[in-house]
């Protein structure tokens, strides 16, 4: 118990840096550069923490506290996810619902903080970000509901229990859910093809534009938070495959390289197409739901 708690905390605190570091290293590799070191994000974090902050006069009290609340919600959500072991440290029945809404709380505050600055650019980014979250949430719930219905376990533990269902259909469900969560990583972590983290053109930014006015420790929190989001969702995928430490590390490493590769190979989609791309999550989750119904009520043998 103690060991898993320590492991959990260590992973949540330090893995996001390494995750983002691997992504950047992959991008450098594809670009033919040597790239920054893998723990560069940690150095950036420390640097930003040491800096002072500039806070705009047009903001109200929300603006300084928003990134903190977002980070707090993310850390709490991190404690709810199962890292390596079947069950999260603080897992309980129905924990995934709390998980989703805590994340939503964090997202809400980041949006409100962005709009608080009174800049129309940030408002534009905020509205787009809100749109994506709206489309992602039903997909997440539908998938979790399907997994819960199949395994009968009302917590995140159901994700890893899926392994025991070895029917053909079970594998299909796992694969499709994995793909959905992976696309969710791209959406929540603001990666290509949903959002380009390296763009400097304000009209093409979505997440970046929300954090234009943040500086110093707030900015550190926000960039760390993006990494943490990606790590949390990747842990879900890792749990679907196996529950050993080695596999966990390998899966996260593979996912980070995959994200980096996608970022180097594709361009960000046109804005209207981004919404369609995000909706694909819902479509696939509907398919997962149908397969679940087939699994539960149909003849498992024949397809």
């Amino acid at each position, binding site marked *: 118990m103690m060991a898993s708690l320590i492991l959990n905390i260590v992973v949540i605190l330090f893995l996001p840096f390494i995750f983002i570091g691997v992504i950047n290293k992959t991008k450098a590799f594809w670009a033919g550069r040597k790239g920054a070191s893998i723990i560069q994000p940690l150095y950036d974090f420390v640097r930003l923490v040491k800096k002072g902050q500039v806070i705009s006069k047009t903001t109200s009290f929300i603006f300084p506290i928003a990134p903190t609340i977002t980070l707090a919600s993310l850390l709490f959500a991190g404690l709810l996810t199962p890292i390596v072991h079947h069950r999260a440290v603080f897992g309980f029945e129905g924990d995934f619902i709390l998980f989703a809404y805590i994340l939503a709380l964090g997202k809400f505050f980041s949006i409100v903080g962005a709009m608080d600055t009174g800049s129309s650019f940030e408002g534009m980014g905020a509205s787009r970000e809100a749109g994506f979250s709206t489309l992602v949430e039903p997909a997440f719930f539908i998938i979790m509901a399907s997994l819960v219905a199949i395994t009968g376990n009302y917590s995140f533990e159901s994700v890893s229990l899926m392994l025991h269902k070895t029917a*053909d*259909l079970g594998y*299909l469900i796992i*694969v*499709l859910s994995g793909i959905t969560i992976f696309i969710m990583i791209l959406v929540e972590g603001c990666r290509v093809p949903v959002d380009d983290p390296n763009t400097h053109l304000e009209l093409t930014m979505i997440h970046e534009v929300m954090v234009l006015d943040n500086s110093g420790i707030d900015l550190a929190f926000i960039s760390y938070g993006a990494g943490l989001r990606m790590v949390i969702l990747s842990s879900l995928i890792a749990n679907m495959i196996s529950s050993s430490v080695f596999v966990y590390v390998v899966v996260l490493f593979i996912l980070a390289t995959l994200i980096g590769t996608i970022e180097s190979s594709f361009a960000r989609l046109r804005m*209207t*197409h981004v*919404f*369609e791309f995000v*909706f*694909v999550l*819902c*479509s*696939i989750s*509907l*398919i997962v*739901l*149908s*397969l679940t*119904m*087939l699994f539960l*009520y*149909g003849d498992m043998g*024949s*397809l």
Partner: protein
Amino acid sequence: MIGSLILLFALTTLYMSATSRIKAYIKIVSLQGVILFLILFFRADNIFSLNFIFLAVETLLVKAVVIPLFLSNVLGKSAVLRESDPRIPNFYSLVISSLVLFSGFIISNLHSDIFEQITPLYFGISISTIFISLFIITSKKNILTHVVGYIMMENGIFLLSLSVAKEMPMVVNMGVLLDLFIAVFILGLFISKINSAFEETNIHSLTSLKDYGDDD
């Protein structure tokens, strides 16, 4: 294995309803031909029977190679490469297609005796494909898109005929293929003629024959 292939087929129909590039349509239709061939391959009991060889050649050769090549040829002659302003924005088109796919599943999974004779995964997805292609045909304006939608509908019908537990008679199969091949051929010919006959470089709907309006 077959299940994953059928699901892949369903995902291609979703992609079709969301994109607006005509080249993508043709590639997807070709991919569907390959998927159908693989499904046929894994499902066949006797891969050396005449029926199977004929069907395999048909799916692989005609659906995956000949017809897409022919359509790319026609596409090359026309100046239109994209479906410009469809009647329904692509996003809603994708939403509607997903809902149709989902309802197809639900309907085919109805838990009663009457639906015993079918394999639900095949049936649900093929019926959904047919309706999604009808939807694509009616909601897009470009005539090449219409032809691609028609081909997709035929693919869905083929999948449906695979879902029936017993074999369709040979005559009927031949009839379907002949129909598909010749129909697409004739339609393609017409498109080439339409390209040269109509002045507009952007082929929208053919609307000169109508009532209650100004006839040309």
